[in-house]
């Protein structure tokens, strides 16, 4: 599949944004992190900013963005529509939560309820995003039981690493969040390795034989219907050489998992304000790594239409 930057950025940014929002909602609402003004302003601002930037970027790949509102109508059948509805509804408790925390300086009572509702909305929205991909049968690498948990784990991972960076930055670091971000990053790494292992061994029942209805033997493409690349090949015929994919997998692992683990470990050893430096670096490096990971998620996914073109 063609890794369009707008979509790669969209899933990475909203994943981190919703992860951070959910954690702030739960930890703030339960008074586990303090109702610190700067944490509320910058933390919720960053979470909602990432979400809004991601959603805006995803409308960038629409052919007719001015009709975008229509996408809220088919929630009965369409995961994309459900994602739109869930993302908009989540803004309501998230906005109230932000209001309570930043303007009234409190995170208990109704503000806590808003925070918990925002966390639920964030988790639901990430699930709908994951299901958009997991429900697509023509793409075997996505239509797998690894896809939905991956979206949830990566949202928790990038969200907790961001939250840790904020807490350390404001000098209110919490060992709990530090441990959480470390464990979530290790979980993300493990899940990605398992997913790659699964995809590399996939035995896809759909072949050029079943695609053409020609049973038995081999079916070799002699001639395409057209000489130049068409929409199908540009959108779904994207191929990435094995050697590049191996290199990019290494890069993704280094940036998204290995370096953040080292940096978070360094945070344990350092006193404030020095601890803030590796924590913030971990969040930045991980975001870049997740962009590479998400780029690969598209580039390595093979759509059944490529069978018709002998690819």
């Amino acid at each position, binding site marked *: 599949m063609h890794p369009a930057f707008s979509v790669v950025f969209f899933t990475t940014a909203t994943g981190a944004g919703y992860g951070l929002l959910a954690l702030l909602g739960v930890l703030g609402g339960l008074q586990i992190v303090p109702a610190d003004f700067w944490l509320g302003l910058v933390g919720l601002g960053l979470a909602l900013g990432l979400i809004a930037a991601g959603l805006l970027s995803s409308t960038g790949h629409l052919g007719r963005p001015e*009709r975008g509102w229509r996408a809220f109508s088919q929630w009965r059948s369409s995961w994309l529509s459900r994602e739109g509805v869930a993302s908009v509804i989540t803004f309501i408790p998230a906005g109230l939560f932000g209001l309570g925390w930043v303007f009234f300086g409190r995170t208990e009572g109704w503000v806590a309820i808003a925070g918990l509702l925002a966390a639920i909305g964030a988790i639901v929205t990430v699930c709908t995003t994951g299901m958009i991909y997991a429900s697509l049968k023509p793409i075997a690498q996505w239509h797998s039981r690894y896809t939905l948990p991956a979206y949830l784990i990566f949202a928790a991972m990038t969200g907790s690493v961001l939250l840790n960076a904020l807490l350390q930055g404001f000098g209110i670091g919490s060992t709990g969040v530090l441990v959480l971000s470390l464990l979530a990053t290790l979980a993300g790494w493990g899940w990605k390795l398992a997913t790659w292992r699964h995809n590399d061994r996939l035995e896809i029942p759909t072949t050029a034989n079943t695609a053409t209805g020609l049973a038995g033997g081999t079916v070799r493409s002699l001639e395409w*219907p057209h000489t130049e690349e068409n929409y199908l090949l540009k959108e779904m015929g994207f191929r990435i050489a094995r050697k590049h994919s191996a290199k990019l997998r290494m890069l993704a692992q280094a940036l998204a998992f290995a370096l953040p683990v080292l940096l978070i470990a360094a945070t344990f050893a350092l006193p404030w304000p020095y601890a803030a430096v590796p924590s913030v670096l971990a969040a930045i490096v991980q975001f870049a790594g997740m962009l590479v990971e998400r780029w690969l998620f598209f580039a390595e996914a093979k759509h059944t239409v490529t069978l018709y073109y002998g690819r």
Partner: protein
Amino acid sequence: MTCLPAHSDKKLGLVIDLDTCVGCQACVTACKEWNTGGHMAPLTDIDPYGGHVDGVWFNRVHSYEHTTEMGGRTVNFPRSCLHCETPACVTVCPTGASYKRVSDGIVLIDEDKCIGCKLCSWACPYGAREFDTDVGVMKKCTLCVDRIYNDNLAEEDRVPACVAACPTSARHFGDLGDPQSAVSQLVAERGGVDLMPELGYHPTNKYLPPRAHTQRAASVPAKALEPVRAEGGFLGWVDRMLSN
């Protein structure tokens, strides 16, 4: 509404004979010619006379070499929307632009509602949907809805343009929901198949596999040609001298 109808009154579709298709592309051209002025018009071409020509087509004909222990053969393979009974292209659509008709099972796109999110083209395993970058909406085969019910056309012309154009009658149109229809009978007789049945889209269109190889092929009685080799000796010298 992008929820699928539990049942459609008819299942209109095509039956494509891979035995007789000669890959002449007549259906492709006829389709483009009709539909660029039809229900989903225009079928935009980008840079039509340049080096990177691209454009929207509803029907594309591939050529394959199918090799089995019986030998090899060339198979021409037309590919277009199969008007599936359970198509995910419809259910994934967030806007309601894509829908399946209850009356005849045809899968259509309402161009005025489409936001061009392209998700339906990802959900179609067969590559039947093509995005029109110029108009910003998705396009696909309409089974010529604007021909098959068109009272202004003569009765025999009320078939999809591709079916009307095919010089070898490799394309047949009819109700595949009715077991007595000519197309259903043809499918039964020739063992018509679904494409990618394992994905569970239940395509309405059927493909008739090429007929089995036969042992009754005409034998060629002519003697094999002899290898051309320069003659040696005296006669060879005479031949060379006279040929100069």
